């Protein structure tokens, strides 16, 4: 890609750029993408690795991540790849199972946050007037609090009567809701702008003229055009949600005490032993950083591919 306007003109290159590209198979498309976006590929690889170890954590030489052991504060060895903590818990197991929690909370947050944010934006942007006013003011109010503080406040104040869902204990559900609500104002604002933009286009007008119902216009004409931006919002929110979860758990306001969370493992009582056992400080943070890094570089490449207008913007 020659962006530099000072590059000498190469006729063959220009002609080639106007040529109709040959049809490429799906496999070849993926292959092309890998060549064009080596960093994105690295990101995808890191994400797949993380998903793999999370899913197969039980068979990857782990023990119960919450189980105590007799080997206290052991340095990394063949028995304990990442060493053990002050109660003999195997850090390798905790890091692997910690991936499950991070991934679960990240995904759930994105699904709830992006979905709810988009629905609210669709309603506000489409109907305008009073609905827009109410949603807009609530967003303004939530926007006044820094996201992390909002999530912290919510996760420490809601939850006395949160139900257990299958696969998601109430303690984790609280965190998910807290982070989702924290991210919702941002998603709402971006999406609302897009709905307003769509609302003014000729094809929406045309649909209105032909007598399409409001639900149909929203579902068939506006929503499909929001998918790209929804994926972009997801690619930004997912790593941010994982970081927020670990930061909340680091402060003791996240997942229930004892749960294997990368943030929680860096905090609390284990901090007293960091000098004696520096591996306790290294591995959970390394796993967290690599995961977020993977999601970020993959998201970057995805944005470049999906929407060249956004290239390098976010």
């Amino acid at each position, binding site marked *: 890609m020659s962006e530099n306007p000072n590059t000498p003109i190469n006729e063959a290159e220009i002609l080639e750029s106007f040529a109709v590209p040959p049809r490429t198979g799906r496999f070849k498309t993926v292959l092309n993408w890998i060549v064009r976006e080596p960093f994105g590929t690295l990101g995808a690889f890191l994400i797949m690795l993380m998903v793999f170890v999370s899913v197969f954590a039980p068979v990857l030489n782990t023990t119960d991540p919450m189980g105590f052991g007799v080997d206290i504060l052991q340095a990394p060895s063949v028995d304990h790849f990442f060493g053990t903590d002050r109660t003999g818990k195997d850090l390798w197991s905790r890091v692997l199972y910690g991936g499950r929690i991070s991934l679960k909370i990240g995904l759930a947050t994105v699904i709830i946050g992006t979905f709810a944010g988009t629905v609210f934006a669709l309603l506000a942007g489409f109907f305008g007037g009073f609905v827009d006013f109410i949603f807009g003011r609530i967003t303004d109010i939530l926007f*006044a609090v820094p996201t992390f*503080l909002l999530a912290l406040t919510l996760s420490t*104040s809601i939850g006395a009567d949160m139900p257990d869902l299958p696969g998601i204990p109430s303690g984790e559900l609280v965190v998910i809701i807290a982070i989702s609500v924290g991210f919702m104002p941002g998603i709402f604002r971006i999406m609302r702008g897009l709905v307003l933009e769509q609302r003014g286009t000729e094809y929406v007008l045309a649909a209105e003229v032909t007598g399409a119902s409001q639900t149909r216009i929203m579902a068939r004409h506006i929503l499909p055009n929001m998918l790209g931006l929804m994926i972009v919002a997801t690619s930004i929110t997912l790593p941010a949600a994982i970081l927020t979860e670990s930061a909340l758990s680091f402060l003791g306001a996240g997942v229930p005490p004892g749960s294997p969370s990368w943030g929680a493992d860096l905090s609390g009582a284990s901090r007293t032993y960091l000098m004696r056992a520096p591996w306790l400080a290294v591995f959970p943070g390394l796993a967290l950083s690599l995961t977020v890094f993977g999601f970020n570089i993959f998201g970057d490449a995805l944005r470049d591919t999906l929407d060249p207008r956004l290239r390098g913007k976010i």
Partner: protein
Amino acid sequence: MRNYIIRRLVSVPLMLIGLSLLLFLLLWVRPGSAAFGVAGGLSLDTDFERLEERMGLNKPWYEQYGMWLGKAVQGDFGNSLVPPQNSVTSQISGRVGNTIEIGLLTIIISAVIGIPIGIISAVKRNSKLDVTLRTITILGISVPNFWTATLLLVLPAKFFGWTPLSTDFSTFGEDPIKNLSIVIWPAIILAYSSAAYTARLVRSSMLEVFYSDYVRTARAKGLVERIVVLRHAFRNSLIPVLTVIGLQLGVILGGAVIAEQIFAIPGIGLLTYKAYLAQDYTVVLGTVMMFALLFVLVNLLVDLLYTVVDPRIRY
């Protein structure tokens, strides 16, 4: 322009009142929780009821909120629920300076590092240097501050016997040099990721401006590239940069809760954290309102600065 400023100035208190109502409902109106916080396990029914009565907790929530708001607009956020029940306002005013100092230092460091990196990245776009810088900036936004802060405490202590953690804190007024030598560490920890955000935004907004007509004109009339970059391209890419610095403050203030806790800095971040742990909801309400006030005011300032940076913008 004047109308715009007036409208914004009116909207700020309205927004803060709305926020306080929301937080009040979230934190306060839960059966018995506040009185329980005070009693601290004292569970004799009679005492409990008397306590509730004294604190006004037996009144309906809107009366309680009205009482709180009436005092809050006069600058009185009530007393801490936890003994010794100090005034929330005096606790905040004694500490907010330290948090503002960290915030300011962080913004300065991140601008000084982030803006040049963004410019270099944009000028040398797609070169090896650019790819390297972009990788570093993505790393910067990926690596969590509480981890680097932890490593900063552990590794130098382990290998050099030195730690940035200080046990006795002194404010800037008391001992500027000592104060800076303590406060600089949380600022650096918070600054690297916001520097990375700033660099990414400067790069992309400069690239956009690079293809505009006036930059082409400036080049065509033979101006030195350095002048084109700094005077034509950079100044015009400042607006999104201003926006991001305003929004970054939100991330920085949120991070201050973590950084102040790790480095034991007595700011309102540490106050908030301790109040959460103790379920001291009057303090939580007060500090979150203070954070929101700082955040909203700075973003108001940013909006007004737009007109200075870009005379084309008129409200």
